[in-house]
């Protein structure tokens, strides 16, 4: 029967070690993999290191480090746990794995660079635990969400689920633009509001609900209607993503033009009766709203939900998709709906997609823009057809 000492020695004979000085001098930027426990990591680690406690190594490493050809330097505190980890990694097919001799202790004693991690406190670790378990999010991702600033246009049907899910996910700062007050006819779908907030401004009603859900979130209420006059001030306050849940065309074209000029991606959603549309407009990367819809339909062809109705749960579906796209953009993961328009049909329970392309002749984001400052959006949307027989 082998003792621990025998087992360690045998393992070290099977793997390759690397001295801190050699590791620090490497030019091929290996992946540093820290297999220590959370409390050790919290006291400091190698810059840019990936943290997977040894107990989770086998289950998590493939998702976190999919490239098996990339050189890996695995380390622990003194070089024992990392030796066992190195052998495991070799067994998992990683081709170039070395264990840091003397571990973090030796690295630090030699004066090589270390980094103190920004970490979540115990409360946040518990609140966001189901995010932390996902390799694509983890602690770094959750910290990115907590640093993110998202501006919601409208606290209505789409803004309700979007704001609640973004708040629950820990988006650190949520701006909400809406000039309306909560009306009884809103409550069939606008779930961020409640019967007791009837008559109060929507931004304040939403702020109350969001803060009750998650006190980590700072809500910035803009109790005003978005216009050419105030949009630069509001967008200028620094937003990473805009969630467009407006209920009218002038605001949608205004948000589009401003987002292109401010270079802020827009997660677009729109709904009518049983059907919805979702896409992501990423300025200068994908198409913008004007590439998709160069002209708004005449008013008689564009009834609002107030005129034509909407299934109460539909904005729940579409607004949740907008929240999902927003989280993906914030985390830089997955395939956002850039250049794709997702069509949601609740009656058919179907999702279909059409392709969107940038229009080189787009008046706002095209090669030779002809619209370079705000226009009169109400007049633009009333259009030359206004009053013309349909």
């Amino acid at each position, binding site marked *: 029967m082998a003792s621990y000492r025998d087992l360690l020695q045998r393992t070290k004979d099977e793997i390759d070690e690397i001295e801190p000085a050699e590791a620090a001098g490497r030019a091929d930027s290996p992946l540093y993999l820290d297999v220590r426990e959370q409390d050790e990591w919290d006291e400091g680690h190698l810059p840019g290191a990936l943290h997977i406690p040894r107990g989770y190594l086998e289950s998590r490493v493939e998702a976190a480090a999919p490239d098996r050809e990339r050189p890996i330097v695995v380390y622990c505190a003194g070089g024992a746990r990392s030796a066992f980890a190195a052998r495991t990694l070799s067994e998992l097919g990683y081709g170039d794995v070395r264990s840091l001799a003397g571990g973090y202790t030796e690295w630090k004693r030699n004066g090589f660079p270390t980094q103190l991690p920004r970490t979540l406190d115990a409360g946040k670790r518990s609140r966001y635990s189901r995010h932390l378990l996902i390799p694509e999010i983890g602690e770094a991702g959750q910290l990115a969400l907590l640093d993110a600033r998202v501006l919601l246009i409208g606290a209505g049907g789409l803004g309700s689920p979007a704001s609640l899910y973004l708040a629950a996910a820990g988006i650190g700062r949520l701006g909400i633009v809406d000039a309306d007050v909560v009306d009884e006819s809103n409550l069939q779908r606008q779930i961020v509001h409640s019967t007791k907030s009837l008559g109060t401004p929507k931004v304040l009603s939403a702020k109350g609900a969001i803060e009750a859900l998650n006190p980590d979130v700072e809500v910035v209420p803009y109790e005003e209607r978005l216009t050419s006059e105030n949009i630069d001030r509001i967008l200028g306050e620094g937003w990473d993503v805009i969630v467009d849940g407006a209920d009218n065309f002038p605001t949608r074209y205004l948000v589009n033009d401003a987002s292109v000029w401010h270079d802020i991606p827009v997660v677009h959603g729109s709904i009518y009766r049983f059907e919805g549309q979702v896409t992501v407009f990423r300025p200068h990367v994908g198409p913008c709203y004007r590439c998709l819809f160069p002209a708004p339909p005449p008013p008689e*062809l*564009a009834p609002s939900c107030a005129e034509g109705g909407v299934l109460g749960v539909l904005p729940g579906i579409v607004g949740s998709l907008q929240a999902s796209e927003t989280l993906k953009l914030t985390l830089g993961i997955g395939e956002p709906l850039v250049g794709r328009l997702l069509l949601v049909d609740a009656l058919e329970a179907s999702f279909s997609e059409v392709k969107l392309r940038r229009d080189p002749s787009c008046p706002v984001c095209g090669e030779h823009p002809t619209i370079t400052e705000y226009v009169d959006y109400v007049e633009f949307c009333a259009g030359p057809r206004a009053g013309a027989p349909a």
Partner: protein
Amino acid sequence: MTRVRIPPTLRTETGGEREVEADGGSVRAVLEDLTERHPALRDRIWEDGEVAPFVNVYLDGEDVRTLDGVDTSVREGQSLILLPAMAGG
């Protein structure tokens, strides 16, 4: 025959039908046949002999503006989607 998807805002003009059929070898021909069969659609889709700029037309998921416009040829089994913008939120 080409299946044409009718958006909710144009269904009054098709008697409530969500999907209708029309015939033709090009997008223009299909849409002309469509508006023959459903005359109420004519003024909704056509503007001065062209497809109105606020109506997007997709052939098998591709915007026909990025193909050959209304002259894009339509083969048997392909489907069209008519899609105007919706503002509701």
